[in-house]
């Protein structure tokens, strides 16, 4: 027997009733759209209400619902006149989303979103207590404009993983913020493939005078885009000290096993050796390559190479 969850439906009913009480005559169609529910489900919710009310459940104590020509009215439910308080998680989610959107360069900082957030702040008893900083970059607005206008541009880009500067022509599809950085999802004409670029590593943006066809834009998902290991990317197995656990938190990995002593065994896909060099030299004694054999000395070799700059020391 399938058991539909009672929680979400109760939640919806408790949200619907105050809204209908405040907007007598609202149509089923509008309610369905507002509360993300089918009209059929909505009717089932409304059929339930006349059985609800207060003891002793006589006619004058039961909620009175009338649906006439698709318009809904409710009476005898004064105790549900005002909606339920927001849970901390709900308040947090609304404020975080709103603050993040307000922080995006170019947003209207005096508009209805700002006034809505100020009211929420007060209702939650925590005015100004939640701040979101999405940062900005020199080329951010230029790329946002290019993406909005379907403009093909040439960029100078620092490829961090490969540790090199490149120039490429891209069709910027979309600019977005994720995991603490701004990205532009684009078609890259240099590699003839979809690529994701970090905006803070874009050094310059130049017009090409051309536009691209917005229909070519992929139906992308940021979560997939941010890191997508290719099947043929090499894998490395690392042993990490307990204090290097942030590597497990902050890098997508194929597997991670925590040992009894708190240390980790983690398998990562690596796109470029420079990336792994940084990780190993940065972590020092906290990380050891376990496999494959050809990468065992990568960190030590890189450290020795960097050491050459300090020969006189």
């Amino acid at each position, binding site marked *: 027997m399938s058991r539909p969850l009672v929680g979400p439906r109760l939640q919806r009913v408790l949200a619907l009733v105050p809204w209908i009480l405040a907007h007598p005559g609202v149509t089923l169609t509008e309610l369905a759209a507002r509360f993300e529910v089918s009209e059929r489900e909505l009717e089932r919710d409304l059929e339930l209400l006349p059985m609800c009310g207060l003891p002793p459940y006589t006619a004058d104590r039961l909620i009175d619902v009338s649906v006439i020509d698709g318009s809904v009215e409710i009476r005898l439910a004064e105790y549900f006149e005002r909606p339920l308080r927001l849970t901390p998680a709900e308040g947090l989610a609304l404020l975080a989303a*709103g603050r993040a959107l307000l922080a995006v360069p170019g947003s209207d900082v005096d508009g209805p979103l700002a006034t809505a957030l100020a009211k929420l702040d007060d209702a939650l008893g925590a005015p100004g207590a939640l701040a979101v900083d999405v940062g900005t970059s020199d080329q951010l607005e230029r790329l946002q404009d290019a993406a909005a206008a379907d403009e093909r541009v040439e960029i100078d880009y620092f490829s961090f993983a490969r540790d090199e500067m490149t120039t490429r022509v891209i069709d910027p599809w979309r600019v977005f913020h994720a995991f603490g950085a701004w990205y532009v999802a684009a078609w890259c004409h240099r590699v003839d493939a979809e690529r994701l670029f970090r905006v803070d590593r874009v050094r310059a943006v130049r017009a090409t005078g051309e536009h691209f066809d917005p229909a070519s834009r992929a139906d992308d998902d940021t979560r997939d885009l941010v890191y997508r290991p290719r099947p043929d990317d090499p894998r490395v197995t690392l042993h990490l000290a307990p204090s290097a656990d942030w590597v497990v938190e902050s890098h997508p990995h194929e597997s991670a096993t925590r040992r009894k002593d708190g240390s980790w065994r983690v398998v990562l896909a690596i796109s470029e050796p420079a990336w792994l060099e940084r990780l190993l030299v940065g972590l020092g004694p906290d990380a050891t390559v376990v496999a494959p054999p050809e990468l065992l000395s990568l960190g030590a070799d890189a450290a020795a190479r960097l050491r050459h*700059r300090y020969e006189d020391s």
Partner: protein
Amino acid sequence: MADRLERLVNLTATLLETRRSLTLDEVSERVEPRYPDDKTARRRRFERDKETLRELGIPIRVESVDGFGAEQAYRIHPDDYYLPELSLSEAELAALHVAVTAVRLEGDAGREGLAKLGGLAGEGADTAVAELDVSPGLAVLFDAVSRHATVTFSHRGAPRRLDPYGVVLRFGHWYVVGHDRDRDAPRAFRVDRIEGEPELGPDGAFTPPPDVDPADYVRADPMTYGEDQPVDAHVLVDAPRAGWVVDQLGEEAVVERRPDGAVVVRLPVVNRAAFRTWVVDLLDHAEVLSPPELRADMVAWLDAVAAPAGSDA
């Protein structure tokens, strides 16, 4: 399912409407559809309903009837239940709708909160412009901020007592900021490094300073956030990375421009580990020039990584 939903609506209405707390016997006499007659089954069924309501954020107060705790009574306090009057305009609701669709967070808390405020008004955003991670435990900390409750938690293995003033998202991480009671100083803690669920003390335990801006507690750069003796470092950055580094640090950090395009930049260092990581991330393109002790630190680090203990090198 329908019976249970009906009873949950009736239980909520009854506990909300009652002027005094009701014992389970009294609840059972009143609320329909009836709880089972068998005492154990009745208690189990009631506890399950109570738990469902609690999960939805409907707080049932439990009070002792006789002062000895032998029998308990229940009610929903109107102040705990009702959302304070917000008077959000349709434009403000629509702006929040855009925010929850344009900024993606894990889970549905934003949409659920919006349903309580009046559902989805207007058109949402077509695509996300930002994606935020929400650390577990963040909602509990935000709740503590609203309640002015002291929180205790374990952070990187150390116990902490904090009067929380706010939560801040920066560099892609959430921080809880406030006054550290044991150190008697302002502090910021990364929420994803808190182990287990934070515990809340009683409400109203402190008064946050007026006009506190939580964002001030998380400094602009992780490298400047630490407790080492502050010292100014000079770093030589080669031409290929010079532009990028200057973009990152600002023109005011440049102390010398060399004919070959390299720059010498000055960085205030209070966190030596973060400073080292920053230099290592530049791989072959950076060299610590001064002060001597930081240069020696870097050399010692590279030597240690190049010839790990126990190796023959």
